[in-house]
């Protein structure tokens, strides 16, 4: 078993009277691709923000393998800087002398070679997400946090990007946490899938990364059943 990179222990997060997270505990191991899946408002993004240290938990602890663990977030809205070229967008946070050369290499790795002097407004949705991924990869992160990065893409581009991100993460042995509401995406991309529901991590299963369509569908189905199952005290059945 790979060594733990991030350990969440009895994590709580409260916004006023809203209990966004309640007693969440799990561990992400080095080199692992973990997907957090669940319905909107379930607490997935809150978990990512806590792990990224963009917010602090109300109670509980997050333990990192190193105190200065390099974490990079790829957000759902690409958050690219429109006044910078793609090259500048990738290299804007780096400080060493080899930045430019490395930025070009990183752009090439995500398939954006030749687009160095292009502005983000000139790129398509898929290219923008590739650029956002390149920016995250530029710092050689020890933990890559993907916050529903493909939510705004069309089905075909989305599928291509799923394959692409999985390939990049595998090639670079990146420890990755993916937030998604798409069970198929979670099953297809992850080594491990965790269902977050009503602020709690309620279910965990092995993902189907690199496996056949039938296995992916089976994992997706099992995850979906948990997501749709009524919580204790809720009425069963769909109201649609």
């Amino acid at each position, binding site marked *: 078993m790979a060594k733990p990179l991030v350990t969440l222990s009895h994590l709580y997060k409260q916004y006023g009277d809203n209990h966004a997270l309640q007693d969440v505990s799990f561990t992400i191991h080095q080199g692992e691709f973990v997907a957090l899946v669940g319905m909107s408002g379930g607490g997935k993004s809150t978990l990512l923000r806590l792990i990224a240290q963009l917010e602090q938990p109300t109670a509980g602890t997050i333990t990192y393998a190193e105190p200065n663990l390099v974490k990079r977030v790829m957000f759902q809205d690409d958050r690219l800087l*429109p006044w910078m070229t793609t090259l500048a967008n990738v290299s804007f946070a780096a400080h060493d002398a080899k930045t430019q050369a490395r930025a070009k290499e990183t752009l090439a790795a995500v398939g954006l070679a030749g687009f160095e002097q292009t502005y983000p407004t000139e790129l398509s949705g898929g290219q923008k997400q590739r650029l956002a991924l390149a920016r995250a990869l530029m710092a050689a992160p020890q933990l890559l946090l993907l916050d529903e990065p493909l939510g705004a893409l069309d089905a075909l581009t989305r599928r291509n990007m799923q394959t692409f991100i999985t390939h990049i993460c595998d090639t670079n042995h990146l420890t990755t946490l993916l937030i998604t509401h798409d069970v198929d995406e979670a099953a297809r991309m992850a080594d491990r899938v965790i269902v977050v529901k009503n602020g709690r991590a309620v279910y965990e299963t092995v993902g189907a990364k690199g496996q056949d369509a039938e296995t992916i569908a089976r994992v997706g189905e099992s995850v979906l059943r948990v997501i749709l199952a009524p919580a204790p005290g809720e009425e069963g059945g769909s109201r649609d």
Partner: protein
Amino acid sequence: MAQSANTAAGQPRSSYIKWHQLLPWLIPALLIALWQLAVATHWIDSGLLPAPLAVVQDGIKLWQSGELPKNISISLFRATTGFVIGGLAGFVLGLANGLSHTSRLLFDSTIQMLRNIPHLSLIPLVIILLGIGEPAKISLVTIGVLFPVYINTFHGITSVDPNLIEMGQSYGLSKWQLFTKIIFPGALPTILVGVRYALGVMWTTLIVAETISSNSGIGYMASNAQEFMDMDTVLLCIVIYALLGKVSDLIAKALEDLCLDWKTKGGAANG
């Protein structure tokens, strides 16, 4: 065949660009032609409204005598000095209040109170305190320019997308890097709108100040000519104001094109 098709397609495009460039000058040219015609055919009394050619001749005469260059220079000096001082003060205050909550609490309320005083209503006070010398006119321009630059800088800084700032923080930018790489470039379009507006205020303020209390400058030339019913010079001054205003606007536009070239890019690719 293909070549001739290209040529045929290229020809109208080139004509269109020329026509497109001339279009903004069409209405001014028509108005001047109409004005000249009206005076030449005695529809309008040339004693009340001299013909454009007479105004041009008056301009040449005043230029050759050295009076026009002297007055334009002094007006330009007052305008640019007031603009630089007021613009810098507005920018610094806008920046400080946009970035610091403490500074905002300390200054913003007072600035908002002062902003609502029409700055031209300060002319009597300024004349009493500073006389009719250069400091009076420059300080009026300074006050006039300060507020539009302040408001737009403050608004620009506070309107920067907080998601971009959060992204910068999560990517480990220092406070200075956050400012230079995200906050300032994000605020720049709004700041430049303030600069463009302030340039208009600069001329308006200077003209009024020079007309009321001065012994030099374009405004003085106009009010002096009015005393002698010298309509050629009065109209000449109005035309000079219009030209100076247009030149200022062109400079502001060029500044926008230079600093915001990324805004003209676009047309996302498909796929």
